[in-house]
């Protein structure tokens, strides 16, 4: 194992701790401390005190999906900016121009969505 | 004279294109253009006949138009494809036949009253294709025109046929399509085999021909096949490929059903062209490619040809006896006669080959004549059924007389074209296959039986209902109708009486050809 891996093992330690804490609190400590008296009313879905109407898992506005789609594209494209930014100083003018092309394309994509009224919420 | 063949082939195409531009209702103009086109082509064919060097066995009027080159076609050898035209003693008579029958068919087509324009367009294409097939001197050209006949006949049957025309047209298309595939395979195989064997023989030949060596040009191939004959193995498989194609093309048993359906469903002029000319193409292929370039295989399997021929002869004859419809009868009779030609080719003798060519021409004329007469009768009586016809000699003396001539000619009455064909043919086949030929003669006797019986039923005997009904007025052939009949009959008689008008042309070529197969 090299030094390189150490940093990630440290993060793994955090992962284990982060899982251990909720498990400890919820699964081990919790049952000892908490009462557990379920009842019909208590377990019913909260709907401002009324009887729940219908199933909650209905269709929701298509806008959510559109934003999700936009996110998928833009988020991944941004990832490409990171390696570029890191090695920017060695790339020089070529890198600048290439990335400008990239950014312009991103902007075109954004304006496209804008003009096509994807960004209008509600 | 060099362009004469090109003219012959192109004139009908121009006529067709001209017709295409016409108004749908310009029936008379369409008819005139059709007739003129056919006539002009036929006249050029006549000119070719006159200008033909009688004593020369070689190809004449050679015209080569380079078309395309496929570099690296076979392992680095370029392949040249040309449009090449030429005729020799075998193909010239068939070109003449096409000319005669096409003009008569054009006249006959005057009777078509619906979709006249389309009829003439397709008919002209068919005629051009037929000319092209016989006049071509290049395998590609040949194949091209063969496909042209295929498409044109398909449409003629499809549009102008009887009730079951769609079925018949598609059957025609598929059968002949498959035949074309094998033909193409045979062609390419032939070109390839001749090229590769030649390189094996000597490099100098290869050098002499240069880049044009690998060619589909018939003249070069013939030349090559003489200089460097193919090995028997190669010849054998090529032979069978060709044979299979020919069996389908020529509707030999057991591939005959498409022809029967096609004839039964087509209209008269189409029948004349298909039965009279198109059905000769298969045997022409046999003469043209198999006899000349695959002699070893032919010698080895000539018995097969004889047997296949006799099967077709007898099957055709018996089926014709059973036929109740004139068109079926003529179709089966045609198959029977074509079997005779196969037998003659199998005899591997100059006389037999000459008989074969004669038979092709004679049978073409007679079949066209029969279809014409029968069609004309049916037009008046409304039926082709032999059983429903009768006593026509009184109401239709001219037609009945011509029918009689046609039947007698087919049977082989001396003085008519059938006789001279059959006699030459049988002479040589008896020499080689006595037993088989005896069976074949039985077929001819049967032919006399069914043809004369059917003719007698139709022409003489009591007048039947159908004949009486006949839309009330039964008129004999009008002048325009009679002209083709007279012309055809004249040719039948001319060949019967003066066989030399054909013989001088055919003889040298056939001699040369027979020289190759050791006849």
């Amino acid at each position: 194992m090299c030094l390189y891996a150490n940093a990630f093992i440290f993060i793994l330690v955090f992962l284990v701790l982060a899982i251990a804490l909720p498990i400890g609190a919820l699964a081990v400590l919790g049952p000892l401390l908490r009462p557990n008296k379920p009842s019909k009313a208590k377990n019913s879905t909260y709907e401002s005190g009324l009887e729940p109407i219908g199933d909650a898992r209905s269709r929701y506005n298509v806008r959510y999906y559109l934003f999700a789609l936009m996110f998928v594209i833009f988020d991944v494209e941004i990832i490409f900016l990171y390696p570029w930014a890191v090695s920017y100083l060695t790339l020089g003018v070529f890198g600048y121009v290439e990335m400008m092309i990239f950014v312009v394309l991103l902007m075109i994509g954004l304006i496209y969505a804008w003009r096509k009224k994807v960004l209008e919420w509600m | 004279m060099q362009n004469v063949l090109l003219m012959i082939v192109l004139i009908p195409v121009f006529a067709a294109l001209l017709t295409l531009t016409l108004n749908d209702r310009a029936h008379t103009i369409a008819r005139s253009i059709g007739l003129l086109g056919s006539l002009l082509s036929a006249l050029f064919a006549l000119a070719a006949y006159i200008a033909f060097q009688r004593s020369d066995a070689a190809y004449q009027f050679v015209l080569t138009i380079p078309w395309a080159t496929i570099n690296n076609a076979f392992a680095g050898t370029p392949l040249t494809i040309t449009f090449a035209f030429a005729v020799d003693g075998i193909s010239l008579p068939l070109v003449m036949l096409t000319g005669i029958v096409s003009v008569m068919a054009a006249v006959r087509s005057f009777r078509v009253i619906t979709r006249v324009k389309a009829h003439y367009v397709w008919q002209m294409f068919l005629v051009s294709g037929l000319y092209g097939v016989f006049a071509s001197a290049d395998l590609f050209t040949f194949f091209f025109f063969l496909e042209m006949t295929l498409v044109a006949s398909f449409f003629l049957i499809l549009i102008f046929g009887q009730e079951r025309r769609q079925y018949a047209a598609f059957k025609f298309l598929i059968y002949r399509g498959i035949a074309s595939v094998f033909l193409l395979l045979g062609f390419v195989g032939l070109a390839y085999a001749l090229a590769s064997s030649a390189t094996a023989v000597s490099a100098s030949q290869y050098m002499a021909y240069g880049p044009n060596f690998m060619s589909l040009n018939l003249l070069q191939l013939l030349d090559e096949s003489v200089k460097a004959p193919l090995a028997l193995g190669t010849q054998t498989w090529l032979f069978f490929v060709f044979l299979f194609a020919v069996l389908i093309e020529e509707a030999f048993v057991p591939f005959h059903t498409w022809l029967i359906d096609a004839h039964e469903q087509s209209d008269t002029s189409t029948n004349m062209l298909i039965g009279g000319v198109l059905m000769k193409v298969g045997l022409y292929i046999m003469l043209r490619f198999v006899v000349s370039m695959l002699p070893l295989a032919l010698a080895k399997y000539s018995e097969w040809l004889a047997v296949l021929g006799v099967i077709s002869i007898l099957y055709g004859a018996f089926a014709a006896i059973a036929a109740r419809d004139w068109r079926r009868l003529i179709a089966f009779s045609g198959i029977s006669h074509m079997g005779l030609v196969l037998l003659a080719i199998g005899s591997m003798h100059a006389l037999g080959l000459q008989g074969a060519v004669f038979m092709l021409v004679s049978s073409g004329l007679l079949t066209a004549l029969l279809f014409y007469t029968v069609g004309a009768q049916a037009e008046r009586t409304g039926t082709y059924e032999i059983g429903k016809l009768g006593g026509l000699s009184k109401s239709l003396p001219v037609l009945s007389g011509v029918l009689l001539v046609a039947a007698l000619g087919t049977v082989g009455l001396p003085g008519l074209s059938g006789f001279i064909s059959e006699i030459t043919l049988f002479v040589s086949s008896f020499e080689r296959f006595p037993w088989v030929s005896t069976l074949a003669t039985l077929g001819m006797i049967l032919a006399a039986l069914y043809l004369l019986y059917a003719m007698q039923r139709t022409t003489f005997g009591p007048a039947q209902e159908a004949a009486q009904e006949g839309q009330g007025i039964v008129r004999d052939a009008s002048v325009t109708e009679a002209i083709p009949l007279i012309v055809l009959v004249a040719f039948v008689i001319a060949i019967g009486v003066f066989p030399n008008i054909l013989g001088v042309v055919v003889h040298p070529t056939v001699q040369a050809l027979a020289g190759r197969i050791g006849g």
Partner: protein
Amino acid sequence: MVALQPFLALGVILFGIGLYGALTKRNLIIVLISIEMMLNASNINLIAFSHFGVTPNANGQVFALFNIAIAAAEVAVGLAILLAFFRLRNSADVRDVNTMKW
């Protein structure tokens, strides 16, 4: 190559699961996810090869990055088409993709 094999095995397993899911699952979203798994199996391969391969180099990682971008585009398009389909047929079930004969 000792360290390579586990990664390749992981790749094979992922690919297999993905292919199985893509071909058998009925929910179209799950099908899309399965396809993503197949793509990611390739990415695992590429990255494993780029680190443990015959000549370790960054090419594989670059390739994987490109794949990620492509996969994102594919999934975006896929979801968009699925959405259009869902709005017309009110279903995201493979069995409802049946207007035309299969």
